[in-house]
């Protein structure tokens, strides 16, 4: 049953805005950002990966000068660890060689004060670690990015992860378990692993930690399916070609500031 765009959760609307701009590119050959307003991490990372895979795309910048400046900074910045302008925090690109990634994560942690305002360092690092490890274990990415940005006046922090890899359904298919894309997301969230039975806890425990522990929101988009989860609302989405993601996006929104979660283990067992 189709859903009205006005009913979509904010995180999903962010993703749908990216799909709208991508659709224009497919029809008209230019990545038209002229009508884009405020840019948030999920939208920015989808765009960053898309432009990494379409390096010659003609870009029409946002009309709003401050949005255009911010967009330019995010797209062109060499990455976390370099000089940061004001409160702009650039995305971190994950190196292909996982042996170099702990150093990248360490820089991101330092910039965000080890997540002290995002539920505490144990919660923050759990989320960063488990989602990034999934990218390395399953995705076979060409490009992968993560980004966190706090919005004090809006009272939330958004953390996003994206890769352009084989998707969660693709990972199951590779393991010999072909299924509908929404069933693949369901399976992943219920702890089914493509590797062995003692694994498969990272994504599902991360969802539990974000939504129950930190009272946040969780969006997962992979292939032709998406999942939106918050304590009062859970929805699976089947996506047509215009919304399909050739990769995996995880978007988290956590209230800001978020007090330290003293015991994350209630959500990670």
């Amino acid at each position: 049953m189709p859903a009205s765009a006005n009913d979509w959760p904010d995180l999903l609307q962010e993703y749908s805005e990216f799909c709208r701009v991508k659709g224009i590119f497919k029809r008209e050959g230019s990545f038209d950002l002229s009508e884009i307003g405020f840019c948030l991490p999920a939208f920015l990372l989808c765009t960053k990966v898309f432009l990494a895979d379409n390096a010659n795309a003609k870009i029409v910048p946002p009309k709003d000068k401050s949005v255009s400046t911010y967009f330019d900074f995010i797209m062109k910045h060499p990455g976390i660890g370099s000089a940061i302008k004001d409160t702009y925090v650039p995305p971190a690109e994950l190196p292909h060689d996982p042996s170099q990634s702990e150093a990248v994560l360490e820089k991101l942690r330092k910039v965000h004060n080890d997540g002290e305002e995002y539920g505490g360092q144990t919660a923050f690092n759990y989320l960063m670690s488990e989602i990034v490890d999934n990218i390395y274990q399953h995705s076979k990415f060409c490009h992968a990015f993560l980004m966190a940005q706090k919005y004090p006046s809006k009272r939330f922090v958004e953390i996003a992860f994206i890769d352009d890899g084989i998707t969660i359904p693709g990972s199951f298919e590779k393991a010999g378990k072909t299924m509908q894309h929404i069933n693949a997301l369901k399976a992943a969230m219920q702890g089914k692993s493509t590797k062995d039975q003692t694994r498969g806890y990272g994504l599902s425990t991360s969802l539990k930690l974000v939504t129950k522990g930190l009272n946040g929101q969780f969006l997962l988009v992979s292939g032709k399916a998406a999942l939106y989860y918050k304590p009062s609302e859970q929805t699976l989405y089947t996506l047509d070609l215009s919304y399909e993601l050739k990769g995996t996006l995880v978007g988290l929104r956590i209230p800001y500031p978020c007090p330290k979660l003293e015991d994350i283990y209630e959500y990670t067992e």
Partner: protein
Amino acid sequence: MSTQNEITIKLAPFFSASHLALRNTADMLFDEIDRFETKNIIIDFSDIHTVSRSFAHQYLLREKKSRKNITKTNMNEDIKEMFKIVASTKIRKIDTDMTNIKVVSLSKSVC
């Protein structure tokens, strides 16, 4: 510090990190451990604040297969708890409630 009969690996300077996130990191550690002829290895978690579930799980998998005597030291309470949880996890599925979740179709016609 190491003696003739044992080697100590301090993880924080070894990985230049205060949090250990990835399965690959545990693999790198045990690949290093396997290089030593010494049988007794001490893994020093001083200045490591957290380890991920994935790291802890891979660590335990590799430790089980290793022929070395491996001891962990200087773990803080968070790290001890993570290893405890991973070591005691039975093969079960997570209780993410998806049974009554609604399914909605998103298509271009709705934009």
